């Protein structure tokens, strides 16, 4: 019973998809606080669909899914979601600071005023992602990598217990990827559970659990088990160099 209460994410025989059409079926996973689950697969493999279901944007088609002991979508202050490439920010007249501050809206609701505490959180998040010097620049004038750092900072301001990150390393150079790895490590150190979707095998290095997807669960387990050659061949048609 005690171990049930401690789980951050529990899924059993979960089916995810759009309307009643499943994209991935029979997903079973159980994550402790501070765990990192990496979802790997090609485009359309179901990574984003699983993340959206965990974020409460899609209803589970079947099976069981609980986030922090609650049905999905019930805890916006405790669960943060980073969507894949929010393209609209390329045209919006918003400063970097304003985009990052939007992460506090889940805590502020409709009416609460932004406090100094909220401001400090926003500034701290910008420093951690290395975009504090661009705080007053319009986000549409930044490069793709800088925009991605802005969105990462926004997620950090949520100060959530669970982070659901859809391709957080997309558009980032090697330093950016290193930064994401460091941010995830520091968040996990304070007990935050992270679920991350990615195309890149190297993003799975520090994961507790890796789920290899190809519109079904090809393999699941620690990286050394889930990323065995036979599974990679089945999923991508190639294996990683040894």
């Amino acid at each position, binding site marked *: 019973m005690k171990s049930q209460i401690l789980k951050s994410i529990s899924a059993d025989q979960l089916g995810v998809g759009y309307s009643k059409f499943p994209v991935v079926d029979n997903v079973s996973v159980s994550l402790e606080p501070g765990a990192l689950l990496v979802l790997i697969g090609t485009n359309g493999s179901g990574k984003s669909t699983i993340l*959206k279901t965990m*974020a*409460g*944007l899609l209803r589970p088609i079947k099976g069981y899914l609980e986030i922090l002991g609650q049905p999905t*979508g019930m805890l*916006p*202050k405790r*669960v*943060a*979601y980073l*969507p894949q490439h*929010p393209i*609209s*920010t390329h*045209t*919006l*007249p*918003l*400063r970097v600071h*304003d*985009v990052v501050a*939007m992460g506090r*809206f*889940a805590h*502020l*609701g*409709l*009416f609460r005023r932004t406090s100094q505490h909220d401001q400090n959180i926003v500034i701290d998040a910008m420093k951690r992602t290395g975009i504090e010097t661009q705080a*007053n620049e*319009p986000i549409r004038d930044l490069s793709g990598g800088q925009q991605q750092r802005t969105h990462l900072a926004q997620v950090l301001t949520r100060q959530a217990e669970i982070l*659901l990150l859809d391709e957080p390393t997309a558009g980032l150079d090697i330093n950016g990827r290193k930064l994401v790895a460091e941010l995830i490590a520091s968040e996990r150190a304070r007990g935050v559970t992270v679920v991350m979707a990615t195309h890149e095998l190297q993003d799975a290095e520090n994961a507790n659990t890796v789920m290899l997807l190809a519109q079904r669960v090809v393999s699941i387990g620690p990286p050394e088990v889930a990323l065995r050659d036979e599974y990679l061949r089945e999923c991508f048609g190639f294996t990683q160099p040894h």
Partner: protein
Amino acid sequence: MFIEPFVDNEFLRLALAGGVLVALTCAVAGTFVVLRGLAFVGDALAHGVLPGIATALIFGVSGIIGAAFGSLIMMAGVSLVSRRFRLSGDTAIGLLFVGMLALGVMITSRSRTFVGDLSRILFGELLGVTSRDLISQVCALVIVIAIAIIARRPFLLLSVDEGLASSSGFSVRLFHNLMLTMIAVTVVASFQTVGTLLVLGMLIAPAATGALFARRISTMMIVAAVVGSFSTYVGLLVSYHFDLAAGASIVLTAVFIFAVAATYTEIIKTIKTKQSNEHEHQHSHSGAHIR
């Protein structure tokens, strides 16, 4: 020449007041129309009110009541068709848009003053604005500002990503419908001034001009309000001196300002890119000398 027409003619003063009120309402609603990419929905709502107004006019009821009913039906239709049927949003909206437009024209054709009524609905009757019309326009402005203030956070999140809004605890359906309601209130309040066909110009052109310059949403709204109000003033003057349609003159002025602003920002961008390239080129040359 610039002030006298408004001093000498009460109908022009009323038209200016009505036009500025429409410009302010459109600045607030139009900002979110542009941010969220709802121009086509705005267009559909503007035309969707036509059957309601036409029916109201035939039965001698206030056009505003008819427009409100028309916009309600259109909003419900857009929401239903895009959610229930497997059609893209613009296909669903396009079908409803032409359907409602055709229905509006059919109903209006039953009227004995068909051409006059249709023209009044489509292009407005700015020079016929009364002080009673101004009161309803002030009410619409207050409603639109209240919605924008209360829902500013979810509206902003929706403009970036629906998933972001939903995962932050805001109902996408509720706030999307609230945004549509805000646009509908603007359209209903503005049809008498600039007409259902031209209201979209006032919704989009000033806000799009604001988007070119602004770094913040509040600045974008202020620029939109200034551009919209200035367009109203210039449009009315042009209409007065050259005997042209008032609503069309206003909208054309707003679109012209956008075109000038867009050209200006493009030129500035090109110059800046050129300067930055030259700067980098000089740096690479000096680097080569050092080596």
